[in-house]
């Protein structure tokens, strides 16, 4: 914010302020993900006094750049549509109380539901790139989340189908960078492995079951 008051180039000439996305500044919105000194992370929690100077900022490389540090992350949102990352509800009449749920189950799901779709897991993934259509860890983990939900489970098979296609789960190369880059410490690799198990069962069921 101080910089925006008087933006200068390295040799002191006036320039236009850097364009970057941000909204909440507390790791809720996910919009300020960028590479800070080469590390993909949320800019809002990158505290300046704990960084090596001079700080080098770069936009995420896995998304098209809009301008400066602002990128267009819609590919990730398209993936979420593809895997139906929602709970199917009718909502036109009162459905009464929801299903009971074990607190332990809820607690685990909560970890998955913390995803802020920032895209850092895609940024560090060697399999997410211009040569492959891999969707990355975030949408896969969302499938793990919604397939756990008592109502969300109704779409479980469709979600697994979506994961089995090109660009889906099997594109994963198990480099496991995602779980380290996640600012919300979501157990992404556990979700991925869980989905591997689920698609294995699903695949056999489809092959021999019906």
């Amino acid at each position, binding site marked *: 914010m101080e910089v925006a*008051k008087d933006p200068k180039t390295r040799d002191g000439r006036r320039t236009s302020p850097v364009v970057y996305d*941000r909204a909440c*500044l507390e790791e809720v919105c996910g919009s300020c993900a960028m590479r800070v000194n080469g590390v993909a992370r949320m800019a809002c929690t990158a505290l300046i006094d704990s960084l090596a100077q001079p700080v080098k900022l770069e936009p995420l490389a896995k998304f098209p750049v809009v301008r400066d540090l602002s990128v267009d992350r819609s590919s990730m949102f398209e993936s*979420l549509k593809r895997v139906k990352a929602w709970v199917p509800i009718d909502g036109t009449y009162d459905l009464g109380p929801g299903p009971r749920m074990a607190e332990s189950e*809820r607690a685990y799901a909560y970890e998955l539901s913390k995803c802020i779709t920032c895209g850092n897991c895609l940024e560090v993934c060697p399999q997410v790139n211009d040569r492959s259509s891999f969707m990355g860890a975030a949408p896969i983990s969302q499938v793990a989340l919604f397939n756990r939900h008592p109502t969300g489970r109704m779409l479980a098979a469709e979600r697994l189908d979506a994961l089995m296609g090109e660009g889906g789960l099997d594109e994963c190369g198990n480099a496991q960078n995602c779980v380290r880059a996640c600012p919300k410490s979501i157990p992404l690799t556990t979700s991925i492995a869980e989905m591997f198990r689920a698609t294995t069962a699903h695949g056999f069921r489809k092959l021999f079951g019906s």
Partner: protein
Amino acid sequence: MGVMFNRTPEGLLDFRRFGGTKFHRTAFAGATTGQQLLYALDEQVRRFEVEGLVHKHEMWEFLGLVRDSDGNCRGIVALDCVSMRIEAFPAMSVMLATGGPGIVFGRSTNSVINTGTAASAAYQEGARYANGEFIQVHPTSIPASDKLRLMSESARGEGGRVWVPRARGDKRAPKSIPESERWYFLEEKYPAYGNLVPRDIATREIFQVCLMGYGVGGKREVYLDLTHIPRKELDIKLGGILEIYEKFVGEDPREVPMKVFPGMHYSMGGLWVDYAADPRHGTLDETSPRNQATNVPGLYAAGEVDYLYHGANRLGANSLVACLYAGKIGGPAMVRDGRDRGARLPPGDGAFAGAKKKWEMEFARLARLSGPENPHVIAEEMGDWMTDNVTVIRHDGKLAETDAKLQELAERWDRIGLSDRSSFANREISFVNQLRNMLVLARVMTRGAGRAPARGVPRRALQGARPREGGHGRKRASARRRELPQNDDRRAHRGWPADHLCGGEHVADSAAPAEVLRDRASQRLTGKLPPACPERSASTSAARTLRPPPLTGRSTSCPTDRARTSSRS
């Protein structure tokens, strides 16, 4: 809808207390309930998108209304923040769901996109803005130079205790201060509520304690202590917010008491919206097209941008419920209204071209601004003045000064020099436009705060307000009535802080909540107030999965919904 709320051992919904409540009555999802609700809604909108029912215009920003010759709102004009193209969108009805104006105060717990620009633009085009000065200052936020981060009330709901050292300027580490030398001032003064007094009281008490010099290390900070609660329980119930504290402060709140201070959090005021009572039993007529309608025909508002549900003081979790409820009744109202007013204006109508042209010319003018002033400096001054004078302590003289200052800033705005002149993804130019709107809104709040008698108690607010059928008239700052209200100078003669801080009758801050509640309850009984909608839906929402707000799919009403707003709970 997909939000997995915390559960009891039986697998049923668990409840927690919030400020101003004595009972465990609020369902919660960790300490980030609002965030979870937001995500669930986001997911549902995505579902509607796939089904072809909703079209999102992301990275578009609301500029103004399109009004036909009869004054009806027939659409909006918006700016594509990437290509900088300006477009008029025809609509049967328009709903503003653009959130609060926190950034008017510079630093707040709100997202930095919450500038109130859409509300201000609508106000300038004739929509009434009500109770602008009803600003909630959250008692516990994490102080920082870029923004304030909310330390949710759930921290106290789960047993967090607020204290300061009994000795002023005590330099010892908090853990080494023995129990007997700690001053749990909230528990001491309000034994019934303890640390969960309503927010305005907690805020004022913390403020006062700090002004008296008892703040931690003499600074404007008090301890919020969770260290007596087992680590595991904290992680389960409050994990999210404790992580945030840890990330920004670098101390583990499970081991070291947190340092917090009040911060601007929520605007109870907003665009005035209507509702209709069912004459048969006096309760809300849920089918009326008047619900959530502003005074501009065809324009609706819901969420923090409306003024309706919280009176002068919002209770924890109520804004989430108010959002959902306003959406629930506002959506059908829009559909009915659109139907009642007949077909929409054809896109070729001159009103659209006119509005579009107007804004294109305006932005061309903004792009040419080349004075010496910097918009960010003006914004900072505005924020500082507003935070100092229009939050917890409001002194008449200071309010007048603030008003003068805001006018000075508005003049300086004319001399702004744009540092970015590109015609692609130019955030600077849209910020300059927003800043002008913020300055207008800041004045609305400041002058509202100065109105006499001091508002906050609806009973007193009746005086001087225009009576309205079915309503409990609160005074509205209207575009057509801009004279400064006559100040009751009694207050000005009293020295502050003591008088203004101690919850005396003249405090222009949010009212003593007990009084508000009592007052509202009595009005409700006599049918002057609608039934306690927020409360009622609070219990409903707790009892089952939330329903989606009805979507018409025809309204273009989400300017910058690309970035999720910060949640509050």
